[in-house]
């Protein structure tokens, strides 16, 4: 018998964790801002007052957009991870299964390596619009392809989606391998940085766009919470309970494609959040999607903020790629998860 946290405790705890992570992340960074200065800056932001100090500039233009992007990224990834796990009825699923990450990575690789031939003067580093648009388009198209391949007479077959995902992901990997070979050293470095993920490309226009997409995606995802609970009984059982299973699948894939696509296009690949956030929530609160979905969003956001804070400070004035840190947390967590599953009765 397990002692489960009540929904209120989980959501409250998640919100608290996010708030703490936000404060900690707001206070960390290469540029030294004392707590007193931070309070002053917050005051100026909230009241819309004038503040010409360098601390205000650094915070308002550089740190704050990163924090907001981090929240959007973590929330989108955590929530999408929950959707995928509910859809595939497997706690080891994550958004990468349906090809968004590999499609975005391939498109990014093509832009960085081959784009030089077509658009020589256009920057191809994290945060530039051509790269962002290509990455989003790539992720979306690959997901569409995988979704198409998973169609059969009876509708969308999750087993087909999994297999198609494996195949297409491998293909994208091969493509990336080819691009790595023909890339110059500089292009290879740029591509590697993109693949490891970073919030460094955060500027208000991109942040606002990603934030809006993730917000809408999260709202739509919540409508799937109840149906995903029913789908845990099995697709045919869920249909007998009146769930339009095909519509749930379509909506889940679209929501994931948009949310994860927008995030990945702007930040590169940030791994493991979609896998571990839902798992941690389930360990505390049980598998009810009506709790796991929002809580995974909160926890994912807190994790990304925390990881980014470390990324920005541990080798200052340089930065570590974010993906390195999420892997550093994620891999041990993953191994613990496997142990937990193995030892279960």
């Amino acid at each position, binding site marked *: *018998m*397990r002692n489960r946290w009540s929904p209120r405790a989980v959501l409250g705890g998640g919100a608290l964790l996010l708030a703490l992570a936000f404060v900690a992340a707001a206070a960390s960074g290469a540029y030294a801002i004392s707590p007193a200065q931070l309070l002053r800056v917050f005051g100026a932001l909230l009241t819309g007052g004038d503040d010409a100090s360098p601390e205000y500039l650094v915070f308002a233009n550089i740190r704050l957009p990163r924090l907001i992007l981090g929240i959007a990224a973590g929330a989108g990834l955590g929530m999408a991870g929950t959707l995928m796990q509910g859809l595939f*009825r*497997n*706690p080891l699923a994550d958004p990468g299964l349906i090809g968004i990450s590999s499609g975005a990575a391939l498109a990014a690789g093509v832009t960085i390596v081959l784009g030089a031939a077509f658009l020589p003067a256009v920057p191809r580093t994290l945060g530039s619009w051509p790269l962002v648009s290509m990455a989003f388009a790539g992720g979306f198209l690959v997901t569409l392809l995988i979704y198409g391949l998973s169609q059969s007479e009876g509708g969308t077959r999750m087993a087909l989606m999994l297999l198609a995902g494996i195949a297409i992901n491998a293909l994208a990997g091969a493509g990336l391998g080819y691009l790595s070979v023909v890339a110059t050293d500089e292009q290879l470095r740029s591509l590697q940085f993109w693949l490891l993920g970073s919030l460094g490309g955060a500027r208000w226009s991109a942040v606002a766009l990603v934030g809006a997409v993730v917000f809408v995606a999260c709202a739509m995802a919540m409508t799937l919470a*109840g149906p995903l*609970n*029913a789908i*845990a*009984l*099995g697709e*045919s*059982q869920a*249909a*007998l*309970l*009146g*769930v*339009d299973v095909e519509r749930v699948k379509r909506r889940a894939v679209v929501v994931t494609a948009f949310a994860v696509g927008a995030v990945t296009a702007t930040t590169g690949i940030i791994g493991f959040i979609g896998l571990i956030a839902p798992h941690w929530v*389930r360990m505390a609160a*049980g*598998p*009810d999607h009506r709790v796991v979905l929002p809580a995974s969003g909160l926890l994912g956001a807190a994790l990304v903020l925390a990881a980014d804070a470390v990324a920005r400070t541990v080798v200052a004035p340089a930065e570590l790629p974010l993906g390195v840190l999420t892997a550093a947390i994620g891999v041990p967590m993953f191994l613990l998860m496997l142990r937990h599953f193995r030892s279960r*009765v």
Partner: protein
Amino acid sequence: MTLVCEGAGVRIGAKQLLAAASVQLRPGRVTAILGPNGAGKSTLLSLLSGQRQPTEGRVLLEGRPLQAHGAAALALRRAVMPQESSVAFDFTAREIVALGRFPHRRTPSADEDAIVAEAMALTDVAALAPRILNTLSGGEKARVHLARALAQIWHPPADGAERWLLLDEPTAALDLAHQHAAMRLLREWAARGVGVVAVLHDLNLARRYADEAIVLGATTGLRQGPVAEVLQPALIEEVWSMPCEQVERADGTVQYLFG
């Protein structure tokens, strides 16, 4: 008022899962679907529940094809207990039974929690409520799913439509006492106006608790009728290829001896 198959059959490629069947079912009685393995019992049940579409013929509920009713509307008055089911994630027994109320989420009753508790009490799984379903035994899981089906159609619909309870081998995993308790429960619900249709493999349970029997035999085809009339030893011997002797107890219950 009735659930009807008109020449409904299912063929997949070269394989005929169910030869064209015509059955008429009415609420307020327990109908047992019987037959050897592979006879198409589960297929017939899945046609009646709407889980499967017939490749020939049609299935009508109150004169309209099942599809025309819509999945959400059907779920308000028709519950299915599956033969087996794998549940993903660590849902508790209570959460699983509560999922039976999912179709009613838009118009919940005043006593949603009580429904779940009472349904679990009826199938003797109340004590298992906080346990994780996947850690329970086969019989316990079956009783939880039965409770879920009962919870789904707990209250009669507001429009007075009949309720249907379709069960695929509900007693297969249960121990002896629970088998009989479950069948008695089904009789009670039928007495209250629910149409109960159960695929059974135990002829004795069927003879004792069902009102009607539908027997699917390879050589005999489909036979439907009152259970005492259909389940004659001669038919049983032909369909199941087992010598069969009918015995009667002092209180009038008829059972069969095999072998």
